[in-house]
Structure formats: structure tokens, C-alpha cells
């Protein structure tokens, strides 16, 4: 057992967990945040993507103890039902989901992508390439790509308006 502490969605949390506890199990089972999904459990599908110290990672392929001391953000940490993150709003607007199972990972990957490239700097080819680690079993990729592009462009407009 190890004591694990991290800042999860802005709140400091800690718990004693078995060393083999995966980060995704810590998030879902210990902290009860079920927005992060377990899809394939073999690190292919990306449904479990969260941000650790500002970078997208697959939380099913990381131990909770590895995230000790880190800042972790999950889907619950980027927006609320009343105040959606622009990426969440764009997924709703463009119907970027069918069954919705892969959506948490898609959205966290999209936010990371926009952070790295800068809002407004994403074209369709780049988005498709960057989605290499996220699988949608409904194969609804077209609208996912559209939603990410729209969110990226909209966030660039918001940034401009703020200047």
C-alpha cells in the first residue's frame, strides 16, 4: 500500500491504495468520478484519457502512485452541465458522438490537442492524425473531427475578443 496525494480537478485528494492500482481505478473507484471511461483496458482506445500535469495520458496505462504529487484533470474538471467547455459545447452542436462511450477521452484529447497547437491552428488532417490513439467504435469520426475543428476556431475567436 502507498499513500497517494494529487490535485484532482483543483482539489487536493489523498488515499491509501495498493501499488498496483491504476490511475483510472483511483479516479473512478476511489474518487467516484465516472466520467473517465475504461474501454479496451489494453491502452488502445483512449476512452480513459485524462490530463496529468497538463498532458493527455491514458489513465489505464499509468499507476495511481506514478501520479503522486501531480495535477490531474478529468472530464469533470473542464466544464459543468451549466457551463460547458467550448469543446464539450462543440461536440453537442456538431453531434460529435453516437453512443457516447468514447466521448470523455475524445474531449480530453481534443483539449490537449488545442493546448499544444494553439486555438485556431488545427486543420482536418492534423486532427485526424492526432486522434490516432482514440477509437470510436460507432465510427463516428467525421462529426468528432468537425466538432474539434469548430471548438478550436471558436476558442481562437474568444481569445481574440478577449485581447
Amino acid at each position, binding site marked *: 500500500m502507498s499513500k497517494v496525494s494529487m490535485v484532482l480537478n483543483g482539489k487536493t485528494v489523498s488515499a491509501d491504495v495498493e501499488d*498496483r492500482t491504476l490511475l483510472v481505478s483511483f479516479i473512478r473507484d476511489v474518487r467516484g468520478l465516472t466520467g473517465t471511461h475504461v474501454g479496451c483496458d489494453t491502452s488502445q482506445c483512449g476512452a480513459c484519457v485524462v490530463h496529468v500535469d497538463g498532458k493527455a495520458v*491514458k489513465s489505464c496505462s499509468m499507476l495511481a502512485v*506514478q501520479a503522486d504529487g501531480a495535477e490531474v484533470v478529468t472530464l469533470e474538471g473542464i466544464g459543468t452541465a451549466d457551463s460547458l467547455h467550448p469543446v464539450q459545447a462543440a461536440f453537442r452542436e456538431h453531434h460529435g458522438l453516437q453512443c457516447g462511450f468514447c466521448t470523455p477521452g475524445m474531449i480530453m484529447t481534443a483539449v490537449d490537442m488545442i493546448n499544444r497547437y494553439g486555438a485556431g491552428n488545427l486543420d482536418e488532417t492534423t486532427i485526424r492524425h492526432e486522434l490516432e490513439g482514440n477509437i470510436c467504435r460507432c465510427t463516428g469520426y467525421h462529426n468528432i473531427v468537425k466538432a474539434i475543428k469548430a471548438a478550436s476556431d471558436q476558442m481562437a475567436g474568444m481569445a481574440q475578443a478577449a485581447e
Partner: protein
Amino acid sequence: MYETTYHKAGSVAEAASLMANADDGKFLGGGQTLLPTMKQRLAAPSDLVDVTKIADMKGISANGDGVTIGAATTHYEVSTSDLVKQKLPGLASLAGGIGDPAVRHMGTMGGSISNNDPAADYPAALVALGATVVTSKRELVAEDFFTGMFETALEEDEIVVAIKFPGAAASAYAKYPNPASRYAMAGVFVAKASDGSVKVAVTGAGQNGVFRMSAMETALSGNFSPDAVAGIAPDANDLLSDIHGSAAYRANLVTVMAKRAVQKA
């Protein structure tokens, strides 16, 4: 996953001593291969010694014409480093094509080469660029470090600390990824040294992991163009054959990837 005990090492010496005291331990880099393997119960180390928090093992620095890369440096850091992009563009582009973005944020160069997966990308770069692997005990040239499929010259408690790359006049990598797994079915790294000599290394296709193509190297030394390697292929008897592609198919892929790499370089 079976039970295991996790240790966070603060220094290379501490990591070695933690490993010496472990019953059946393994060093943990980014864990992008080891943890999925443990989840499948194909590996069950009693102890995991995390070496990614060791400051001496992180970062990228200039080293004459070349670069030195800490073993705990992630693929993402290698692919986005201005220094690597400027000095060894082939290496930066290779790192940006490993796995997917989330894997690249975690996976490390030291972890990847220590595992020596026959389909991993880095071994081809290290061999073609003539890199030196710096461990906690010694320095090894890349060709002596990689000894076979999933096999390296590393001893049980020996840790890869850094990889030293000499400069190159030109470098490029081309791979044919498996459409599903995205692992290389054949990947070819071509490097032209500052003295004009050429090295060509192949990953993904060989039965014993990475190997050099001396016939291509000779041809490219005289004429550095895709045409020079168009008629050269490895002996299919030495290549992997599986449901994804026969040995003869892979032999042809090596030629095609070599042409593409030379074109890019």
C-alpha cells in the same frame, strides 16, 4: 495485474540499490509497454523501480555537433525539441510517430530501447546514427547494446542513463505501420555522417531485431539517391513472417521504406 511494490528512485545509485534488494524487480520508465504487459499477467515483477523522477536522467543537451538525451526523456519531448529538430530531424520525426500522442507523453527513450521490441522505432535510429548508450556502469555502442529480440546487453541492475548521438549531415526515417497496431512492419532509418559515410538500419522486419543493410550503405555512399537502393532487399530468410505479412513482403517493404527515407533525408 498481480501485486507489486512501487519505489520512486531519486538517483541512479538509489535505483540500482532498490533493484539489488528486490526479489524480481523491473525498472519502470513511462510504463507504456510494461504496465499493459503486467495487466495481461505476462509479467509479474515483485517490485517496480520508477526511474523517471531522476533529474540526471532527464532532458536534452547539445554535445558538440550532436545531442545527448536523458533516458527518462519522453518521446513527446524528443519530437518537439528544437535542438533535436535542428541537428537530427530524422530522430525528431521518428519520435513524433511512435504510438499516439498520449503514449508519447509518457513513454521514454530509455524504456523503449531497454525493452528492445523488434518492432520499436528507436533501435533503428540509434544504430544508424551510431549512438552510444550510457548506462550506470559503462558506455556501449548501439550495435553492441541491442543483442536480439527483446534482448539487450544490460545486466539485471544496470540502468540506461542517457543516449549520446553524434551529429549527422542528413537523417530520415520511414516506416510502414501495421494498420491496426501502428507498430512498424518495416522501418528504415538512413543517416549520412558528416564525413559522408552512410548507415542504414532496419527495424520491425528482422527475426533478431534491428539490423544494418550494408549493401544499401555501400550503394548510398557512392550515390545518395532513392534509385541507389531500389534494387536492394534483405534476405527474406532472415525476416519475420506472421499474419500481418510474409517475410518476402517485408523484404520488399524494407526496399520501399529505404527509398522513402533517402528521399526525405
